């Protein structure tokens, strides 16, 4: 890999690469700015955040106190600018509910969500790529149909239903997996499957389509004409090329999973970012909501960037001009 990057720098010139990074950075900043403005204004769709903070059974006096304490009486643009200024320094303010800095809390939860997201991704890839490959080798065969069924069923099943059904069988009836929590790796098995299964269809279809296309391509015919064995053709020649778009998809899906794990984290009591987001939404914890949306969009942008870099690394046509 290191060698690859060296060639990559050598062949393109450092300037080009730096220019590319700067361009991406500017776009990323603009996106983040737009997203933050939208989330900030969105959170003022509601009435008075002070009431949410005060909680049930609070008196009017309590609410007024809280409103002044947190500065909700200032004009919204003023609040946005001051929030943005602090956010730029990594300070997203205090959580209204958890009474501690938002950034610390998010950072703590991110670890759990990343663990869950990564294991879900690995599950999805391990299931989807071989299925996609097998389906592409023998289109319309029994295996292809099976793979297609996995894909179609996966797309049609609400993830929460799948999760709860798994919990019923593996957790309650057979008792081979812990129901909820994050204490051991076994706790991550069901949430990872539930979350990963959701993206399996997409990865599988892309692998299948990519393999079908590549297997039809001229260079596979060349490889066959060379006398290469079926195995070498499949893995060395075909998969190597078909996997490139899958890598991008996987990176992007990973981003979606981080933001989409709300339901799964809620069901399996995984105290990750998704759960924090959902709890924050329920208690109208504005600073927390804003920061989570922002962090997730930054993550998404970083992941698409990573996907591009990975693509360039895998695909010499992009890497070297």
């Amino acid at each position, binding site marked *: 890999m290191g060698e690859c990057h060296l060639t990559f720098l050598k062949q393109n010139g450092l*300037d080009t690469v730096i220019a*590319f990074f700067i361009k991406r950075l500017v776009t990323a900043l603009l996106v983040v700015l737009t997203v933050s403005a939208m989330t900030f204004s969105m959170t003022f769709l509601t009435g008075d955040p002070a009431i949410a903070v005060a909680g049930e059974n609070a008196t009017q006096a309590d609410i007024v106190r809280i409103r002044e304490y947190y500065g909700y009486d200032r004009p919204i643009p003023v609040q946005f600018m001051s929030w943005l200024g602090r956010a730029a320094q990594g300070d997203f303010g205090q959580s209204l509910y958890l009474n501690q800095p938002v950034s610390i809390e998010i950072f703590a939860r991110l670890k759990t969500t990343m663990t869950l997201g990564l294991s879900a991704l690995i599950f999805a890839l391990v299931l989807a790529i071989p299925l996609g490959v097998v389906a592409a080798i023998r289109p319309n065969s029994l295996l292809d149909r099976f793979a297609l069924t996995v894909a179609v069923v996966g797309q049609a099943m609400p993830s929460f239903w799948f999760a709860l059904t798994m919990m019923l069988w593996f957790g309650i009836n057979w008792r081979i997996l812990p129901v909820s929590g994050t204490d051991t790796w076994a706790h991550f098995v069901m949430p990872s499957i539930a979350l990963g299964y959701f993206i399996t269809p997409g990865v599988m279809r892309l692998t299948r389509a990519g393999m079908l296309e590549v297997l039809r391509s*001229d*260079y596979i015919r*060349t490889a066959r004409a*060379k*006398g290469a064995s079926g195995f070498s053709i499949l893995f060395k020649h075909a998969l190597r*090329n078909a996997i490139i778009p899958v890598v991008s998809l996987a990176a992007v899906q990973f981003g979606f999973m981080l933001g989409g794990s709300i339901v799964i984290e809620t069901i399996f009591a995984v105290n990750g970012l998704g759960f924090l987001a959902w709890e924050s939404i329920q208690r109208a914890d504005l600073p927390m909501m804003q920061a989570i949306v922002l962090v997730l969009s930054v993550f998404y942008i970083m992941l698409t960037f990573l996907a591009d870099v990975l693509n360039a690394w895998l*695909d*010499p046509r992009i890497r070297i001009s």
Partner: protein
Amino acid sequence: MADPVLSIRNLTVGLPVKLDRKNAVTGISFDVRPREILCVVGESGSGKSITSLATMGLLSPGLKVTSGSIDFDGRDVLKLSNKERNAMRGDQMAMIFQEPMTALNPAYTVGAQIEEVFRIHRTLSAADRRAEVMRLLEEVRLPEPKRLYDAFPHQLSGGQRQRIMIAMALALDPKLLIADEPTTALDVTTQAQILVLLKQLNERHDAGIMFITHDFGVVAEIADRVVVMRHGEIVEQGTAEEVLNNPQHPYTRALIDAVPRPMTEDTTPEANENPVVIDVQGLNKTFTTSTGMFKPARTVTAVNNVSFQVKRGETLGIVGESGSGKTTLVRCLMRLIEPDNGAINISGVDFAAKSRSELRSHRKDIQIVFQDPYGSLNPRRTIGSQLIQGAINFGIPRKEAWDRVYKLLDIVRMPHDSVNRFPSQFSGGQRQRLCIARALVVQPKVLIADEAVSALDVSIQREVLHLLNDIRDRLGLTVIFITHDLRVAAQICNEVLVMQYGSVVERGGVSQIFNAPSHDYTKALLSAQPGQNWDMPVFDEGDTLAKI
């Protein structure tokens, strides 16, 4: 004569059901002998590629050999197991394909891809393998083998890639080399080089070469023996000498007859007194491409200070190889692409100076027919609605517009009921006729044909060329004819512009260009034409393809 390395007997390859023909190849038999080049010639759909793929055992799953045998080196390859076949392929028989751009795996260096042949079939040390690859790279005349070894396919030109393919095919000194239209996708100068290379290699190696082509010029250049195929059957086979100069079968004759003749006689056009219709002055167009994320933006000068004039009723040929800027030039001319600067005067209107909305009313003066007969008609609309659109756009009453359409259908020799059909129901040649009709419906002063016949089989090519000439004369059109093929240009043009790297390098009458070219590039183009030394026989009118 040596025993044949390949001997095909009564080979029949079945087509999957539902198609109009039962077999892709029906009962064909021929031999390939060591050290000989056998050319298999035919138009598209003749079954020539299928024959070669069947020999290699590379037929796509839908196609099945239903009878016959393919004896190679004493064994019937149709009866070999997969493993035996793999062992044979790449070692004893090798193949070169048509599209050098896609035939190499983009993910590996070309060195690694050649090396793979040794990995598969031989046990050699890494150093030995590398040495072998270097030897091969040198043998196929690639510059700087050491650097090329680590290059990826996309970094090479088409010709270089085809040389890599050849090196790969020759790696283990096979007994049989199959080349499936190996030069068709290449520019004519590159084609000439590759043909020379193949001939040289043929002298040094023992391999028999089976060379698939549609181009009789190429056949004349390299063939020892020729097999002519049509609709999956062999219509004629014999030595190159016999088939080229004394073809027996009417189809062969017709095919040869349709080959564009090189310009030999001096036909200086009579001085044309007509007014100038197109006056282009100092046209420039540069593109800035930023194709990849890590690639620096590149500036390409596609059209470099081009000026020319065409008079009414003339046909101007613009000739150049791919990338010479000829297509960009005409698209700028029509303002389908915005030129950077320059003046375009078309019958008194400066196209370059008008705003796009002002331009609309003048668009009818200049029309275009494109190369790809499949992309230039909207698959979702009936032919009629597409033909009439232009007239409607310029406010012609519906009835009159339909009259025009029917009249034009007569001119392009298409039936009137074509208007109710969809493009998918027409062949490539028919579509090109319809495109010509569509362009003419607005009664343009200038018609541009942008490689309008390049995608067509040679026999159909000739018909369309005749049609174009006919229309020009009947309607008093001015035609700009873009082509990469000098021979085609010679058949239809009065004058020719030769372009290279965006610039016009030479301009002159057809006979002047052919007989007394002044620019080196024009000379190179001319000398690269395949089959120059072949004196094409002429047949009676009776043997046109239409009759067969």
